[in-house]
Structures are given as structure tokens and as C-alpha cells.
């Protein structure tokens, strides 16, 4: 659950929160590309540190730390996996790097990705996100399905809790038995959950249709996204970042850790 906590939006206002979601997405995309381009430790470390000012300006450091902590399990797995295969077949590792350094770099790359996505979701309201999708000409049906899915996650989580309570009150012990039995213990929880989700979606569809959903081809919006100075600034920052990353990748020889460390 803690992983999802790290991505859950809270309504606060900051220069980062107010940015156009499309611009923020561009930024995430640039981060993504940059992180994928490098496998060396120093640039990945720089990318990781570069984002910390964003987190601080947005004031979401607590949730951000939680999202990183939530990603720790997968990171550890990635680390162990890369280290293991690095030793088994050293040929797969780019020249000059030790398996340990490579494993650390790969884990860090994953953390950079988690970090940027976490910033995006922590500072972008689902409403803004759907607006952005809509104004990027994604069909409204898809946009709506997407935002509804996001919107109903907490409702479903609460319902799952109630169902769990109801079945526990009938003597169900979730943590009892061997692995197979434990998996089967979840059937009495999953079935009511799925049934009520389907029921709810049908009711929602009827309620929406009775309020004229899909009545006109062209929808208008109460809010319209408009770029402001801050948005252009973020675009410029993103482009500079991308250009620098490409330049460094192709024209600057990057040292490995073994070369940096004093002999």
C-alpha cells in the first residue's frame, strides 16, 4: 500500500502543482529518456539530485520519501538481479564497469524513474490530468474511463475493508493455512468486491446517461488549460536537460567509478 501512498495526490498549491500537466509530462518524459540513455553512475546520480529542488518547491517531500521507500523492495530485487548476472556473464556489462557499480547504477536508474513519476502524480490532480488528456485530443471516452478508474480506487479500497470485516465476523481467518489455502481465503473477499464494482458501474452508467452523457459530439469544459510563464520556463528547463543529456552522451567520455576512486 505504501507504494500507492507515494503517488496519491493531495490538494495543495505550489508553483509545481500549478504547472500545466502537459508540460509536467514533458518533463517526466525527458527525465525518462535521460535516465534510459545513461548507465554510468555519475550522470544518474546527477539526474537523481536534480529533481530534489522540484520536490522541495512542491512541498511533497514526505510523500516523496514514502514513494521511494515503497520502491525499495523492487530496487533491492533489481540490484541483486543485476549483480548476480553481472558476475555470471561479465560480457553483458559495458566496458570498464565492475558488476557492483553496474548493479548500483541500474538501481539508481530505476529510482530516478520512480522519482520523476512520483513528482508528476503527487503534484497533478486527476481532474487536471483528464483535462490535459482531453485537450491533447485523446477521445473523451478513454479520458473518462481513465479518470473514473483513478477516482474509484479509494472507494474500492474502503469497500474491500468492509467486506474483509464482514467475512472476518463470520470466522474467516485470512492468515491461516498453507499458501494455496491462503490464496483461496481471498475468494470470499474478491467475489463480493467484483460483484459490487460491476453493480456500481452499471448504476454509474445509468446515472450518467440520465444526466446527458454523450448528448453532444463536442464537449466544452469549465476550465481550459492555458500555458503561463512558469510553464514555458519548465519547457525550457526540460529542453536544456534533454540537449545536455544528448550532448554528454555522445561527446563527453564518462568516467567509471573505478577510474574516479584514488588507487
Amino acid at each position, binding site marked *: 500500500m505504501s507504494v500507492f501512498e507515494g503517488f496519491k495526490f493531495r490538494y495543495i498549491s505550489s508553483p509545481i502543482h500549478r504547472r500545466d500537466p502537459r508540460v509536467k509530462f514533458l518533463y517526466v518524459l525527458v527525465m525518462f529518456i535521460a535516465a534510459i540513455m545513461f548507465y554510468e553512475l555519475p550522470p544518474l546520480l546527477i539526474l537523481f539530485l536534480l529533481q530534489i529542488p522540484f520536490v522541495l518547491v512542491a512541498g511533497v517531500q514526505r510523500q516523496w520519501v514514502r514513494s521511494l521507500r515503497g520502491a525499495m523492495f523492487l530496487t533491492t530485487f533489481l540490484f541483486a538481479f543485476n549483480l548476480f548476472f553481472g558476475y555470471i556473464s561479465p560480457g553483458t556489462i559495458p566496458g570498464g564497469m565492475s558488476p557492483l557499480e553496474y548493479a548500483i547504477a541500474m538501481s539508481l536508474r530505476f529510482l530516478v524513474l520512480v522519482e520523476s513519476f512520483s513528482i508528476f502524480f503527487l503534484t497533478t490532480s486527476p481532474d487536471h490530468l483528464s483535462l490535459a488528456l482531453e485537450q491533447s485530443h485523446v477521445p473523451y471516452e478513454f479520458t473518462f474511463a481513465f479518470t473514473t478508474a483513478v477516482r474509484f480506487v479509494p472507494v474500492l479500497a474502503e469497500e474491500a475493508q*468492509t*467486506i474483509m470485516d*464482514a467475512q472476518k*465476523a463470520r*470466522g*474467516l*481467518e485470512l492468515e491461516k493455512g498453507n499458501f494455496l489455502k491462503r490464496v483461496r481465503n481471498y475468494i*470470499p473477499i474478491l*467475489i*463480493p468486491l467484483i460483484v459490487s464494482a460491476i453493480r456500481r458501474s452499471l448504476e454509474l452508467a445509468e446515472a450518467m446517461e440520465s444526466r446527458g452523457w454523450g448528448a453532444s459530439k463536442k464537449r466544452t469544459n469549465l476550465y481550459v488549460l492555458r500555458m503561463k510563464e512558469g510553464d514555458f520556463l519548465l519547457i525550457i528547463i526540460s529542453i536544456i536537460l534533454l540537449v545536455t543529456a544528448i550532448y554528454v552522451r555522445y561527446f563527453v567520455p564518462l568516467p567509471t567509478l573505478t577510474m574516479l576512486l584514488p588507487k
Partner: protein
Amino acid sequence: MIEVKDVHFTYPTGVEALKGVSLSIRNGEFVAIMGQNGAGKTTLVKQFNGLLKPTKGEVLVDGVSTRDISIAQLARKVGFVFQNPDHQLFSETVEEEIAFALRNFGFKENTMKRRVTWALSLLDLTEYRKTSPFMLSGGERKRVALASVLAWNPKVVILDEPTIGQDHRQKEILRQFIVQLNAQGKTVVIVTHDVEFVAECSPRVILMAQGQIVADGDAERILTNPEIALRASIVPPQITQIFLGLADLELPTDVIDVSEAKKVLLEYLEGSKR
């Protein structure tokens, strides 16, 4: 016997739902817990079968703290029927649904069969034995949920909002059923907003507001007191409202049910004729 000793409860979200609640429910009592939404009613009864454990204070069921015993063990004694039957029904047949808890509690196969048959007839569901619970009407699903709890014959039965979504006739059947259960010695606790329903049952009423108990006593005393009702945001039963309105005639005002009202009014008419 359930004893609640100065229980405080705060949800992980930081909402303080119970602020020092103390009460005791004796064996065989019939209790209605009332109050407006968010008063802490459901939070309180969830303490009785250990679904929630007090943040401070303690709850004793037959002398054992709910902290020292598993929910499953407690559930054997304290049955809890949830508000929405759709939150528990999952089996292919009604019969299987009722057997679910019995299986969890480790009943033997033939005892289980007997109990299922008994519970089915108790709630008039025998004809639906092999029907899918999802095919039944709302009222019937509610009865299946009730049967699935009564099947293991718990000493205490808690019903969360039993009257919601029930038509008038169903409500009356439910009322008679609950009264009958109680008459057979079962401790019954209902959580409800339904003043009229409670007035017809006349149990002990525990009134809650903002996580605390504001009144505890006979239905006649509590439901007819406009001052207490106001504090817990409930409205006295319609019968009582008539008598409160007729206070000038020097009629009693602590009347809550139809038969009592009829008696009082007839007596008054007899008196005025003479």
C-alpha cells in the same frame, strides 16, 4: 456480558470516533444504539467483536479483553450482521452461504447440515436452498445474511442498520423476529436511525453523539424527551409527537407505540364522556 470501559478510539486517518465510552450489556438484553451519522455507533459495535480494538481503555466479552482473543474466537460468541448483505454474499447457493461460517468454525458435517436446515427455516428461506444468493431480492438477501450469522447460534447478535432498504412488511417481520430472538434469551444489539422501529420494539436505548453516550435507558424515557432528542439530532416517534402536541389535555407524553397510544386515548375519551 459485554463491558466497555472508558474506550477511546481513533482511526488511522486521525478521526477520533469514540471519546471515552463506558457501558455494560447484560446477557439477554435488547439494546438499540442510536444517534446521527458519524456519532460513532458502528465504531462502537465493531469493538464488541474485536474488528476494532480500543486505542485506550478496554472491552471485555465474558470477562476476556478483546485484545487477548482473535476475531474468529470472538465471532463465535458475538455474531455481527453487516448493513449491506452484498458485502458478504459470495457463494453459489444460499445453502453454501450459510455453511461458510460453520465451516470456518469447524462444525462437523452432519451438525452443519442440521444447522443450515434450521437457519433456512428460521428465516423462511427453505425454498431458496439451492438458489444463488445473487438472484434474490434485496430483502431476501438481507435474510440470507442474517441466517448465515444465526446459523452458528452466537450468544450475542449485532445488527447494523437492519431496517435500511426494507419495505414496511419486511420491517414488521424483522421486528417480530428480533423480539422473538430476544425472548429466547439471545442478547440483541441493533444499530439504527429508525426511531419508529425502535419505538415499536421498546428496548434499552443508548443514544450517541460525537463519540460519546448522551443518554442510556428505557426507550419510553429517552425517545420522549425532546431535550435529549435534540442533543443527539433524532426526532421523537410520530406517536410521541402527537402526545407532546396534546400536552394541554394533560395526557401522558411518554407514549411511544400504537397500542399504548390507543389505550391512553380510549381512557381519555371514556373520561370526557362522563
